[in-house]
């Protein structure tokens, strides 16, 4: 995280130096800064950051896609005269153990169409998830494990 | 009797110191007396000595004194009798733990009284007048542990205090009418004052002061009650001097205020009624001190009666009688004190045959009583003769005055006889525990009584140097007064004989008369003392009722009152000035929406049945208001509004689980009145706002800020520039408020812990905290 901040700082300095405050310029600065950091920091400390950043961007893309889908799903559900939803609460066991990962997963799940994390099981080994459009609970559990959990684990470990 | 609360041991220990103290105090009246005596020749020659220093020039008040015939007479009485009283008191209260305080009050009184009679400025006079009231209060309550003394002190204080307040108003009016508070000028302005449109209230107010102080009916009752004071006090203040302050005042202002029908009738009637009623009451008493007290009232009534006139003889009679009375009454009081001291009682029925043990006292008592009864050759006889002469000389109502005088004097004869004969010569009753006692104790009464005799034998001692200058001062014209023991057989002498006869008869029939009065008295609907009590009681219950009505302790009623007041005030202002016109506002739809959201939130909060619902309403309201700020160009305010509103709601939500729910829905119907009130205030606020908005706006300050923000304050956010620069002081104060609020809240929420940790310290206990 520290390196990310430093990177942003560098990008801002770039913008300031070049005197142009456009988005493009900022992104240019960010990229340059990334490179600079990668060079200066080398392997010793920040190794993971440089590997993680692309994955994080990937996760972000995935997340945005899911969000859009989720929004559209919600629109359809709300506006259509017929109720399609089949609400149910499903217990989803977790493989992740890291706090941040669990958090990210929960965020993602909550933003997915028709799902809402109600609670975490007492042993913190499962979510209770409220779903609208799931027919098969087991299929949903698999989907979570193979889709979200994997990506989160990759991006944040 | 007064000294029973301290022990003999302390008495012995303190007696040496007490004697020294007494001697020290004695210097004051002695010095004053000698100084005044030295002034006698000058005053007799007609000089009025003036002494003035500037005091409150802004108000025209000077600390001015003047010695003329009238003031000298009274001043001599005050200091001379004061001298004897101090000697007497030194022995009477020997060893009393509060003797020094007693002397302090006595000196205070003496100063007050001397200042009063010597004052040459109305306000100065009043200042010393009130000083005597205060000193009297402290002295009456000297035996502070007894409820009776406290009650009597309060009664005297309130009554004379009320009178004093009237007097103050009267003196201010008099000063206004005369154009000055300087006595010299006031005395010259008589004609103007009497012609003033406010003459009547002025006179009545001043008389109210004088008559309460001098215990005239219906304000007479405080004086007998004041006998709760130690006897020296009774002798000094409540017979010889202070009660004569009213008389002095009437005499002092005689040249200014007299000569009108109102003056004459008011004084004559009041005085006559007082003399007659008090005389009857005096006869009824069996407590020696009380009997004497009532005779004092008689004397005061008589004096008042005579001062109503402006006949030379009547005035001379009054002045002479002032002297006469001062001598014999002070002496008699001290005698009673000696009896009380020796026997432990003042009750007539228990006393008798004391002449053996108290021979000197007996002589003093006898001499004083003879003067009181008006036997020749005592000064009392001359005084009485002069009274009758004066009464007959009064043009308007000679019969009334003479009749009252005869009646009163007759009963005085009876009382005088009773006071001396029964205790000293009657069948032996309670025995005296010791003999006359030290000379200091009986010296005063004896000397005073003998003075009565001496002055009677040689009237020139008083006539030229005291009475005549005084009469001159009162009447404001040079007068010649001759006092004679023997006038030949004339009407006054006949009246004297009649008086004596009647008096003896009354003395003979005293038991029957007393019994009669005792049987009548309870059936009388009114006694002034009881009326006083019921007045005080009704004052208290009025106060209690008012408190119940106003200060009832119910918060929502307090708030109702506040808002009702506000609504009425605003309604009054709007009716007075006219309501503003209302025009349909031009708003865009989003502005309407924001306002609607705000209003809806407010209504939701008002109608909410549960706190959280109300909070949600407030949340909506907060968003609505923020949007309004935003739409009208106030983003800083919008952000702050949102943050503050939210933080506050969060705070409530954080504490809500510790608070109870609203117990039942508040039905609107139950609080229709509140709703109407609220709407009324709301409408008024709207109207007020619209009125303010009608005025074209003066943009000078706004423009200044816009011009100066960047060049001078180096900031482009004008709001922020105002906050941190143009009006930084406001902001500074405001962070203090927030800080103090936080600290105060911490105090509240943690206070109980800190307190329990430290234990309960001393101080700040609350008497009714339970």
């Amino acid at each position, binding site marked *: 995280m520290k390196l990310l901040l430093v990177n942003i700082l560098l990008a801002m300095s770039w913008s300031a130096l070049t005197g142009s405050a456009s988005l493009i310029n900022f992104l240019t600065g960010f990229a340059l800064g990334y490179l600079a950091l990668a060079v200066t920091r080398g392997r010793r400390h920040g190794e993971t950051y440089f590997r993680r950043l692309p994955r994080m961007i990937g996760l972000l893309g995935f997340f945005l896609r899911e969000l859009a889908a989720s929004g559209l799903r919600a629109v359809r559900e709300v506006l259509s005269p017929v109720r399609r939803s089949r609400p149910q609460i499903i217990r989803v066991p977790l493989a992740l153990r890291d706090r941040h990962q669990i958090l990210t997963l929960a965020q993602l799940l909550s933003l997915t169409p028709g799902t809402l994390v109600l609670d975490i099981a007492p042993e913190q080994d499962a979510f209770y998830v409220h779903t609208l459009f799931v027919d098969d609970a087991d299929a949903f559990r698999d989907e979570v494990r193979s889709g979200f959990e994997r990506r989160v684990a990759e991006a944040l470990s | 009797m007064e000294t029973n609360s301290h022990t003999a041991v302390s008495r012995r220990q303190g007696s040496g110191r007490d004697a020294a103290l007494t001697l020290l105090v004695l210097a004051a009246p002695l010095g004053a007396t000698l100084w005044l005596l030295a002034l006698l020749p000058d005053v007799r020659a007609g000089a009025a000595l003036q002494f003035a220093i500037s005091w409150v020039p802004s108000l025209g008040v000077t600390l001015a004194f003047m010695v003329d015939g009238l003031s000298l007479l009274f001043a001599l009485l005050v200091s001379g009798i004061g001298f004897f009283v101090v000697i007497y008191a030194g022995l009477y209260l020997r060893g009393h733990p509060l003797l020094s305080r007693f002397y302090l009050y006595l000196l205070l009184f003496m100063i007050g009284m001397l200042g009063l009679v010597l004052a040459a400025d109305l306000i100065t006079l009043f200042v010393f007048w009130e000083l005597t009231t*205060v000193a009297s209060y402290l002295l009456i309550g000297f035996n502070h542990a007894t409820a009776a003394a406290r009650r009597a002190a309060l009664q005297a204080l309130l009554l004379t*205090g009320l009178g004093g307040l009237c007097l103050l108003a009267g003196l201010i009016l008099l000063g206004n009418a005369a154009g000055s508070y300087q006595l010299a000028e006031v005395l010259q302005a008589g004609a103007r004052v009497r012609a003033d449109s406010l003459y009547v209230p002025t006179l009545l107010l001043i008389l109210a002061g004088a008559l309460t102080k001098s215990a005239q009916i219906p304000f007479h009752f405080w004086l007998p009650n004041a006998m709760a004071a130690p006897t020296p006090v009774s002798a000094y203040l409540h017979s010889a001097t202070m009660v004569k302050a009213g008389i002095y005042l009437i005499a002092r202002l005689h040249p200014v205020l007299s000569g009108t029908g109102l003056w004459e009738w008011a004084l004559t009637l009041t005085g006559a009624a007082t003399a007659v009623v008090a005389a009857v009451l005096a006869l009824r008493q069996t407590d020696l001190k009380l009997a004497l007290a009532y005779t004092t009232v008689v004397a005061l009534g008589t004096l008042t009666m005579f001062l109503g006139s402006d006949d030379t003889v009547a005035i001379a009679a009054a002045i002479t009688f002032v002297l006469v009375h001062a001598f014999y009454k002070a002496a008699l009081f001290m005698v009673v004190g000696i009896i009380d001291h020796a026997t432990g009682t003042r009750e007539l029925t228990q006393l008798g045959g004391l002449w053996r043990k108290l021979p000197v006292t007996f002589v003093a008592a006898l001499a004083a009583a003879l003067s009181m009864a008006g036997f020749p050759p005592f000064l009392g006889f001359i005084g009485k003769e002069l009274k009758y002469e004066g009464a007959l000389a009064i043009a308007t109502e000679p019969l009334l005055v003479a009749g009252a005088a005869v009646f009163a004097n007759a009963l005085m004869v009876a009382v005088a006889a009773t006071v001396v004969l029964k205790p000293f010569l009657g069948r032996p009753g309670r025995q005296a525990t010791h003999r006359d006692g030290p000379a200091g104790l009986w010296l005063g009464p004896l000397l005073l009584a003998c003075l009565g005799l001496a002055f009677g034998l040689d009237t020139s001692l008083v006539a030229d140097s005291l009475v005549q200058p005084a009469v001159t001062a009162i009447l404001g014209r040079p007068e010649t007064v001759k006092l004679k023991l023997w006038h030949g057989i004339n009407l006054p002498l006949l009246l004297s004989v009649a008086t004596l006869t009647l008096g003896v008869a009354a003395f003979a029939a005293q038991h029957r008369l007393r019994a009669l009065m005792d049987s009548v008295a309870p059936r009388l609907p009114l006694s002034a003392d009881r009326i006083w009590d019921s007045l005080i009681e009704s004052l208290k219950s009025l106060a209690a009722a008012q408190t119940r009505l106003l200060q009832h302790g119910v918060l929502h009623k307090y708030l109702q009152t506040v808002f009702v007041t506000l609504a009425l005030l605003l309604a009054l202002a709007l009716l007075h000035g006219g309501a503003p016109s209302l025009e349909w506002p031009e708003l865009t739809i989003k502005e309407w929406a924001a306002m609607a959201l705000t209003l809806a939130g407010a209504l939701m909060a008002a109608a909410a049945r549960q706190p959280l619902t109300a909070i949600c309403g407030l949340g909506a309201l907060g968003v609505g208001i923020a949007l309004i700020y935003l739409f009208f160009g106030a983003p800083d305010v919008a952000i702050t509004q949102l943050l503050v509103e939210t933080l506050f709601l969060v705070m409530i939500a954080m504490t809500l689980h510790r608070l109870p729910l609203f117990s039942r829905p508040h039905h609107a119907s139950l609080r229709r009145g509140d709703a109407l009130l609220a709407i009324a205030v709301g409408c008024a606020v709207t109207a007020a706002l619209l009125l303010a908005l009608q005025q074209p706006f003066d943009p000078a300050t706004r423009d200044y800020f816009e011009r100066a923000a960047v060049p001078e304050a180096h900031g482009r956010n004008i709001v922020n520039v105002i906050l941190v620069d143009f009006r930084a002081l406001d902001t500074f104060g405001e962070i203090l408020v927030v800080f103090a609020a936080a600290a105060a809240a911490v105090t509240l929420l943690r206070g109980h812990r800190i307190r329990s940790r430290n234990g309960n310290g001393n101080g700040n206990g609350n008497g009714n905290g339970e």
Partner: protein
Amino acid sequence: MSWLLALPFLLPIVTALVAYLTRRREALTRGLSVGNCALLLLVTLMIFIAVVRGGPVAAQMGGWPAPHGISLAADYLSALMLLVTAIVGLAVAIFALADIDRACARLGFHSFFQLLLAGVCGSFVTGDLFNLYVWFEVMLIASFALMVLGGKPLQLDAGIKYVALNLVSTLLMLTAIGLVYGLTGTLNMAQLHLTVAAIDNPAAIDVLGVLLLGAFGIKAALFPLFFWLPASYHAPPVAVTAVFAGLLTKVGVYALIRTFTLIFPAGEGLVHQLLLPAALLTMLTGVLGAAAHYEFRKILAFHIVSQIGFLVLGLALYSPLALAGAIFYMVHNIVAKTNLLLISGTAQRLAGSFELLRIGGLYRAAPLLAAVFFIAAFGLAGFPPLSGFWAKFLLVKASLDQTAYWTAAVALLTGALTLFSMSKIWAEAFWKDHPGGEQSLAPLAGTERLQRLLPSLALALVTLALGLFPQPLIGFSLRAAAALLDPGAYVEAVLAGP
């Protein structure tokens, strides 16, 4: 000069902040509090002298020119009020050393006390209407804290009423100030004097006047808005009540006087008609309330209300003499009333209660206390030669001069009833024997005796001195009154520039 004018609030503020940080080091905070009060006395004295010598002084905060920035201004009235505040502050600060227990001190008593002084001084010295609001708030929140300091049930109960009613006043004041700004476009009081005079809109001026009257009326405890005062003043520690009694309501009265002489001259218009009846009813209801009670501090609290009536009477009569009377009365009353409350605390400390029926014996056991009480109480009742006499004299004379006979009558009657209550306390607490016997009286000794009695003695001497030598203050009050009625010099001083 600008610093001199700012010091009366800056000093207590800094002291308050530092004292809060060091509130667990008792000796230090106590020293800070008393030391600052002494310093404050010095500063206010300097201001006073400056004003006496050269007339009103003003300063522009931040150096921004009036009427745009915030102006501070001290005319005769302000300078006098500042001085009296400092005197009372010092007396109470010393008294508090003995009266405030360790727990209350640790909760921040000294800080809140200093903040209260800052608020009071700020209110007296500001020449800006909105800044006045801010200082009122500083004072108010400090008073809230002091009211509930220690958190006893009684205090909380009283605090609820105190807070609930005072907040209404605050909001009214805020609204009113907002509307005044809307009407005139300025907040500077000197400028307002000029602007309002030029506005021909009697309806708006009446309405705003009435709003301000309501707001300040609550603060000043005017009839029928005074409930908060008797409901609460007997609850907090005595040192707190004493400073409240001396200063809080007086700031409300000050605001009334300032507003209705400078901004909306009350010689005419609706407010003028309302002030007189309000004043008279305040005098009477207050004094009657006192007659109904047997608790030392409740009696005094109701008397505060009553005496507010006298102060407002001076404003209502609106003559030089009447205003001078109000000013003189204010000084007299602040000193005497503060002292009486300090004495009530010492009496309670000695005899164990504030309930008059449960105490007694102080006349004999505590002669010095009795003497200072007597001076303060009879001074309050208006007996010469104590300060209250001249105060009463001025107001009664002003009434009579204006042929307001009923007013004079009510004033005198109120005086008599005041005497009734004061003598009640005297008789019950001092003269009467203690119901529990002499052993129920706990004697004072050493430092505590000094800390408790020295302030009382000093204040009693002030009462006596003002009575014996009234001319300086009366002359000053007349000058102050003249300046209030013709604020040309004030306006000029403020608007002259930095």
